[in-house]
């Protein structure tokens, strides 16, 4: 079941109870404040926290007029203060989609030491498939920035 090449896990202890961390995830205005790094602006279009509910965010780079696609997915599970699972392989209402980056993210909020152990386990398809996002090259500025730099190195 483990697939080290395509799964990543990160965790972080947050000095606040799980309900506060859930609140930062479940209220659109709050999510918009941290989901995408500044100076890129985040717009939370849909945040329907129930199985089959849509999850849509858009991003706008500093100085740009239009918002660009960011995440367009669907929640698979939403247990307040405990667990949130979404995928980009389906969109709202279980509609199958072919996202530019296929992933399923499993987010857990565990009470620990008076705070919250927040963990994200993110499952991807094959490395070859996931490498496609490099070509798309805009994800939060990383693809672009690092792609450009890598291009210069390879010359």
């Amino acid at each position: 079941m483990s697939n080290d090449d395509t799964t990543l896990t990160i965790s972080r202890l947050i000095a606040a109870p799980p309900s506060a961390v859930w609140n930062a995830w479940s209220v659109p205005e709050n999510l918009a404040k941290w989901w995408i790094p500044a100076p890129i602006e985040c717009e939370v279009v849909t945040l329907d926290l129930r199985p089959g509910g849509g999850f849509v965010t858009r991003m706008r780079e500093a100085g740009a007029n239009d918002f660009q696609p960011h995440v367009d997915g669907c929640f698979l599970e939403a247990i307040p203060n405990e667990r949130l699972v979404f995928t980009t392989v389906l969109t709202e209402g279980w509609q199958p989609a072919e996202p530019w980056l296929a992933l399923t993210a499993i987010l857990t909020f565990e009470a620990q030491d008076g705070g919250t152990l927040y963990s994200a386990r993110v499952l991807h398809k094959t490395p070859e498939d996931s490498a496609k996002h490099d070509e798309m090259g805009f994800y939060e500025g990383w693809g672009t920035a690092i792609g450009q730099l890598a291009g210069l190195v390879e010359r």
Partner: protein
Amino acid sequence: MVNQQAALDSLFHALADPTRRAVVSRLLKGAAPVKQLSAPFEMGLPAFLKHLSVLEGSGLIHTEKHGRVRTCRVDAERLAAAEGWLSQQRAIWQGRADRLADFVESQTAPEQKS
């Protein structure tokens, strides 16, 4: 593995800033003295030197002093470490967790219930 991850985190942190990315881009064309590097940026030298020290701390650039001139050069191998797609995704999710923590902690700190 943990150390390797910490090193990657510092590398992505260094690359997260547009000024620092511009410096690295410039250095990929060849080594350059600090004064020349700082010229395109509208910021004071102390602020610019802070950016250089973040870059140097991440191992992305090295600096050498000859007389009064400090010259910077890029470490292409370190930069290559940031290229893998999983490393990039990890940096994105780590960044999100860090920003989430900062946001939640700044919200709850003033009215902390004991």
